[in-house]
């Protein structure tokens, strides 16, 4: 893998099956098997033959309608999901914000959740404890909320804390999935600043967003995904334009139809 690349994706396909049963229980499975019913499964081809190189220091925006495979792609780069075919090589430390939430225990305080999340991502206890104050400061929660149980937070506060954890882990590669919708205008400006700063430090950011203005403003490269395939890659303005045209017309541009 060349040194200047942060992520190299070669002919990546991700396929998985989901159960269509209302309840996945042992009892149902046994009953179904005993009645010789096939369990109702649907195979989802989330990503199909995707090849992409992302150099260090770039900000890549990923646009596409729901179900295009954007989140699956992000999870695969993070190492949470595994490729069905192909190869993903990642050069550097990853920080993710894929599902909103820092830790996972609602009855623990924000501070405890930050520590748990950091430990799970492989930081030592001293490292994460030294960062906790910065994270709390960046999230800028109202007085004392950082030491209250997370279940008392508003959804905006929750989103701010999650975002703050993700950007303050000093990642080489930052994966953000719909993370910028959280927080008010002031916080948005702050997060943009922080992301520009990360860029200046030659860190790589991947953003999945439906807020197209964000993509054009922050990214220097964008891809458009549609039903698992990458339709186009290029300057964010052009990609967003084409995507918008598609959204308004509802059909794919003629030059993509054969794909």
């Amino acid at each position, binding site marked *: *893998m060349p*040194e200047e690349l*942060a992520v190299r994706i070669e002919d990546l396909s991700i*396929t*998985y*099956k989901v*159960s269509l049963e209302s*309840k*996945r*229980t*042992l*009892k149902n*499975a*046994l009953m179904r*098997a*005993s*009645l*010789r019913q096939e*369990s109702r499964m649907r195979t989802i081809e989330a990503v199909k033959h995707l090849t992409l190189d992302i150099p260090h220091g770039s900000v890549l925006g990923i646009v596409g309608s729901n179900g295009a495979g954007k989140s699956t792609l992000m*999870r*695969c780069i*993070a*190492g*949470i*999901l*595994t*490729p*069905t075919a*192909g*190869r*993903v*090589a*990642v*050069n*550097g*430390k*990853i920080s*993710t*914000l894929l*599902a*909103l*939430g820092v*830790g*996972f*225990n609602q*009855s*623990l305080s924000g501070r405890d959740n930050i*520590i*748990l*999340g950091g*430990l*799970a*991502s*492989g*930081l*030592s*206890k001293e*490292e994460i404890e030294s960062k906790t104050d910065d994270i709390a400061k960046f999230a800028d929660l109202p007085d004392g909320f950082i030491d209250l149980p997370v279940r008392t937070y508003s959804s905006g506060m929750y989103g701010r804390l999650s975002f703050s954890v993700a950007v303050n882990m*000093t990642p*080489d590669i930052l994966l953000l999935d719909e993370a910028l919708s959280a927080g008010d205008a002031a916080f948005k400006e702050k997060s943009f600043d922080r992301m520009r700063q990360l860029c200046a430090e030659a860190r790589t950011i991947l953003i999945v967003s439906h807020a197209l203005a964000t993509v054009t403003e922050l990214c220097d490269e964008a891809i458009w995904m549609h039903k698992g395939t990458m339709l186009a890659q290029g300057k964010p303005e052009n990609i967003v334009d084409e995507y918008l045209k598609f959204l308004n017309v509802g059909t794919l541009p003629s030059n993509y139809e054969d794909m």
Partner: protein
Amino acid sequence: MVVGLIGATAGATVGASTVETVLNFLTATFFVPATFFTGAFFTTAFLTGAFLTAAFLATAFFATAFLATGAFFVVAFAAAFGAAIALLDSKIAGSKSAEIRATPAALLIHLELFKLLTILMFTFRNFSRHSPARIKRFFSPIGGRGWPAGGTCAQICSWDGRLTPMPANQDFVSKVQVFEPHKASLPPLIPYFKEFWNRRVFATELARFNDKAEYLGSRIGKAWLILNPLLLGIVYYVVIVIIRGGSDNDGLTRLNHLLIGLFTFYFAQTTVMSGAQSITLGGRLILNQAFPRTLLPFSCAIQAFRQFLPTIPVYILVLIVGNWISPATKFAGISWNFLWIPFIIACIAFTAFGLALLFATMNVYFRDTNKILTYITRIWMYLSPILWLPSALHGSSKLLLYINPLGPALTANSRIWIDNSALSLNIVLGCLFWAVASMAIGGYFFISRERDFAIRI
């Protein structure tokens, strides 16, 4: 015995008539009253101590009811089950001291088994139209058809060098991670365990935080962890004394045996039960981050151990007070034998952790595993030498101690805490065997499937 015979006769009649009736009315509605009445006979027979009769009844009922529906698989299953109960009963009834017959354990085992049988019966009822090949295929991997495309149960990426801490602004020559599908069901184990070891602090901190969240500002909460098995032990003791018609001549020895058994068993049970839920409850963290998922059940094991430790001083307190109240109570005294205790506890911990991994995996695919687990652990407790003394078993019935994953360890536990006697080689090997076997099986199931969890949560 008379009632038992009446039960047997009635059972035979019911059985005979069931053949005819079921042949004519193969409807599910029939099963409900049939189960109820047979259940009543079954229980009556137990209450009179006629275990053999009861086992016969159970077998007869299953055989007739299911022969009628042509379910060869269920018949085979029920017959094997019935035969096992009958064998167990005859062994217990034939044992020299025969004391186990009088303990509530035997009774409760049968009641729980009956409940489980009823559930299984309804579940397996439809296996009649099943070919053996299909049954085999169904049981081979958990869930049969539910794996991701590509045929392998889990295609696990390398953990190599994941998120190793790196100072800011370092040049980007850090380890490159490559994610590729691979056909082997297990990931490379050495990097996996290295990652596990690197993040062990996460597991201990998670256990500590969970403890904190659960009992935040509630003193009775923490006390409850000790009070619950203590009170339960006393209740069981009272029941045993009543059924036996008075205490033995050894004072409160039996209570002590019961308590140390219950405390230790609770440690294993908590590990298994909370470990089994740890993955399904760990949603956000699993969706957001890549880390060895074994850390979550491991943290539950640590939490269970932290809750187990304070029960030991409580046991010693009960022992001292018991000896003071009733001087006949056996007082083990201190000897080198107590050096075995850490070994036994470690074996119990590993056995329970292995089982927790197994059930945690099952729970991801079948969300009712937890409900079934409550039955399993209860039967497991009655089958363990807690309510009865290991010395109650003789001859080949001693096998019961060894087919139970916690049997050897609990026997050893009681032998040291109560009798202060040395362990036999069989017991030590039994402890080791179950620890290794359960870790190997549970670990294999869990680790080979854990990359699938993020999709299924």
